[in-house]
């Protein structure tokens, strides 16, 4: 029997992998992918909560699922903007390595 705790563990593992990727990797594309991973980890836990919490009339609680759709939409928009920025940045600098992008440093 798979319990809520199992889902949350998987979600936490995914989130940690994503966070570690954002923190440690140097390639912007990988960082973006790690971000997506973190978002999806959050989505997973939301869906799990939805599934395991019973609302009125024995139906699942749908609020969390609606929230997941929002997250997916925002993530899609974010990827579109993020990739566009990335392409523009590459055209300007010929690099996707975050270590080379230090113009905002004092």
């Amino acid at each position, binding site marked *: 029997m798979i319990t809520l705790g199992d889902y949350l563990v998987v979600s936490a593992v995914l989130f940690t992998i994503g966070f570690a990727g954002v923190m440690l990797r140097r390639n912007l594309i990988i960082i973006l992918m790690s971000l997506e991973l973190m978002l999806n980890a959050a989505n997973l836990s939301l869906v799990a909560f939805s599934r395991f919490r019973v609302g009125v009339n024995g139906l699942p609680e749908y609020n969390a699922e609606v929230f997941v759709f929002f997250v997916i939409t925002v993530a899609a928009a974010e990827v579109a903007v993020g990739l566009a920025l990335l392409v523009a940045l590459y055209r300007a600098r010929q690099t996707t390595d975050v270590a080379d992008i230090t113009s*905002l440093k004092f």
Partner: protein
Amino acid sequence: MNSFYPWLILLAPFASATVITLFTLRWKSLSCAISITAVLISFCCSCLVLAQSATTAPEFVWLDVPPIFRVPFGLTLDQLSRTMAVLVSGVGALIHIYSLGYMRDDEGKSRYFAALSLFMFAMLGIVFANNFVMLFIFWELVGFTSYVLIGHWFFRDAAADAANKAFITTRIGDFGFMTGILMIWMTTGSVVFAEIAPRMAMFGGHTTFVAIVALLIFCGAVGKSAQFPLHVWLPDAMEGPTPVSALIHAATMVAAGVYMLVRVAFIIQASQTALLIVAWIGTITAVMAALIATQQDDIKRILAYSTLSQLGYMVMAVGLASNEAAMFHLFTHAFFKALLFLAAGSVIVMLHHEQNIWNMGGLRRRLPITFVTFAAGALALIGCPPFSGFFSKDAILAVDYEHNLPIFVLALFGAFLTAFYVMRMLVIVFFNNPRSDSARESRESPPVMTIPLIVLAIFATLGGFAFFALKLPAEKGAVLFVPVIEIAVLILGAGLAIRLYRGRATEPVKIELLRRKFYFDEFYGWLIYWTQEFLARVAAFIDRWIIDAGAVGGTSRGTWGIGAVLRLIQVGNLQAYAFLFGLGVIALIYIAVIR
């Protein structure tokens, strides 16, 4: 009998001032005619009102804030105000006529007559005011007209400065006056004289408070009547045209302070301390001004210091709770001092605006009418019987003798000095040999100037006989003694002056302390300089160290410092930003959930 005459006294000069200012500035003769007509209307109505003692005037409410503040616009028509109105409009009318001659060739004649009319309006307003607010407004208005008229020849720096000095100095007194009015209103809830008098009990026997209120009211009189220590403006005010000096700075406006004290005597007399201070201020002014007058060279300044001295006598009488004596001296003084000023003006204008007495001399033959009238005024001023000044000064001295011996002695000394400096002036100006070309070639003034002189001389000579009509409270034991010693002192002073100055062409005794007016101007200059310097330094300190360094500089340095710290975080490492961002989120969650 309710009638409109009393209002007409006020409105005629006001209408004249308005019409001249708005329409007839360009037509000088028309302006003069309007102004003189207005003052004559005032004078006639004043006489009518004086004759019909049962007259009352309609009154309307000007400001009304129901239970706490009500200011009617009404006229007090008692014996005091009706007589004073006749005096003011009468002397005013003579001086208007005299001005026709004196200001004949002046460019700003219309402006001058407009200001003169406005002054008549304001002065009569003071006389008739039946409440403090109305009194105060007219009080300020006479101050303003005085300013305008002193500065009539504003293109002369001395005149412009004197006008400012007069306005600012009196303002100091007026500030105290206003505070006093507010305190009275706060305590009794009324500003109307007739309502305050029965409510004096509401002060509840707080003697110190009553004394403070009385002295604050007195402050107004100190400023306006140029008493010590605010006397410095009056001698400088002599920069104005001579008729103005006669009307405003001798006969009427400066006497307004004394009139006001008599009008609100019930407040002053509620406190013995206040009365004593008032009496001593008057005494100090009387003696000090007389001392200064003995060493001045400018004919108008001598008269100005003499005015100060005589005002001191009046205030002294008020302080000894003898309003009748004060008002009596005010009346006689108004006539003889206006006369002296106008006669001096006649001398000045005939000598082509020469004011130094050492450049005159021997004028009794060249200006006989001026000489005779001036002599009449001078004899009245020194209190020579039977001229008017004798009776009024005697009344004051008798009161002094009865109530306060030190003041009596000082007042006698003042009378001695008065006799001395008046005789000195008379001898130097009208006797001896002429000491300048203009003095040798001068001619008598035109009738438009001499007729007012003659009329005033008649009043100055005979005005004293009103003494017998006036029922002064009988002075015990002083009846014979005081006049005798007074005449002795008078002969002494006059004799000394004649002996000292007969045949002299220059000042034989020079006392620098008196010539420099006890260094009052220098002292005030120093005081104001250092007060201002001190305040400026404090202000500069606050500006430099608190506002500039603290508020403005502090903001800038604070922002800069915070920025300097914060930019250490700007490492340019994307992951570091993300890490800090994560920390921030965790902190927010901590705050939101755990706390």
